[in-house]
């Protein structure tokens, strides 16, 4: 994947944390792929059982969870109860990013497991203290291109 292709497929959105909450984020601008309200929790705020995941390579630094509401539309809203979840893993080579995740959505049985991973990659970035505002870059079907995408975003953010 070259930079021009990554530039062509990137879809970004910003989410802002609701005042007075620790993990509740609302869509503010950009692409509407994830639910309007998502929960982004830091590693320290997660319970122990959430630390197991689909990727043993990198350190878990947080988690995203969300549920699509009745009036929301998204290519990810496929099976009831329309849940979405991913761990956020940090890449040591790119510490300026919060991390990346691979989107898992409810399967036909309503559960999220290894098979319900969409292969879509998200990369989280913030320039605000305490993750007050987070930019989520979305790359459909591109989880295998993690390294080149991280490098592209790193160079672009410089």
């Amino acid at each position, binding site marked *: 994947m*070259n930079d*021009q*292709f990554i530039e062509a497929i990137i879809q970004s959105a910003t989410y802002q944390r609701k005042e007075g909450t620790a993990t509740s984020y609302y869509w503010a601008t950009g692409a509407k792929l994830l639910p309007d309200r998502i929960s982004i929790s830091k590693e320290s705020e997660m319970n122990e059982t959430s630390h197991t995941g689909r990727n043993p390579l990198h350190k878990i630094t947080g988690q995203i969870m969300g549920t699509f509401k009745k009036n929301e539309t998204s*290519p990810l809203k496929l099976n009831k109860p329309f849940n979405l979840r991913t761990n956020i893993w940090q890449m040591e080579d790119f510490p300026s990013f919060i991390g990346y995740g691979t989107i898992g959505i409810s399967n036909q049985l309503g559960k999220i497991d290894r098979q319900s991973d969409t292969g879509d990659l998200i990369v989280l970035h913030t320039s605000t203290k305490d993750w007050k505002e987070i930019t989520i870059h979305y790359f459909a*079907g*591109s989880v295998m291109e993690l390294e080149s995408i991280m490098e592209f975003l790193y160079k672009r953010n410089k």
Partner: protein
Amino acid sequence: MIDYIEVTKHLSNKDTINLGHLQYEAEYASGLHKFFVNGCRNMELQYNPSLGYIRLKGSPLYFIQGHNFTWNKQSFTEAIKYIEKLISLNLFDSTVDKLEYGKILKIEAKPQRIIAGHLAGKGLTMEEKSRDKGNIRYFNDSNVSLKLYNAGTNIQHKQGLTMKGIIQEAGWNAKDNFLKFEAHYRKPHISLNNGKGFSLSDMLIPSFERTLKSDLYNQYQRLEKMKSLEIPSSKKELSSGNIILLALAEIAINQGKDIKKLIDNYIRAIPEEILNQEDKKARRKQIKSMLGKVHSSDINEFDISDQLADALKI
């Protein structure tokens, strides 16, 4: 290189297609839905739920790398695999409806000169558009559309600065001359596979690639190459009058006509009041001397068969 493709996949009951990540474009009365797959250059995806098929159109190379100056199978398959992931559907078993295969050659002469030296051979019709300013010629029959064009102009006009930089790194130089010969197969199963349909994965196997190469060469042989004249080496011999005569002589040779006879007849038709016998004699003498300097070239500068064979490694 395989450039433009059109492939159709007939969906089975087991197939569940995900169109959510595509850019929705339109719905037609026929029940066809049109989408774009976003990339460096978009590809088009048509979905007809009532007839149960999808059709993918476009150039995987332009889609994934933004240009077609260089080709490798890996980039091509990367593009298809990306779309497969996006729509959750295997595409390599799709049937190839149309395809374009071509080769770029670096040449010494100006591409316009070489293009102008190619005419339609037997069974082909030639088409040229004035807006292309001699940079492209099409040769058509019911199965193929052959295209001979200035690949450098294409890059100059169609690409932005960033992409020009990338193509430059891949070996393109604005000062060099690049010519592309391309075959657009309207019925590829007839031209390339003895009438039998073939899939996208069939198209990528080495033996099929050999078929594509040799057919491209054979298609090129269908074009008629004009005979060329030796261009005089001194400026003195290239007066405006001489250039007109050279151009006329070249056309006459290629049409099998005797230029001396043509000019003689023309002079004969001029009324006595304008040119008397002595004037006509003098003109004939002058033209005879000019024609004496016109020599047909030993090597046909228009025929790029050898370069094409080398580039195709056949």
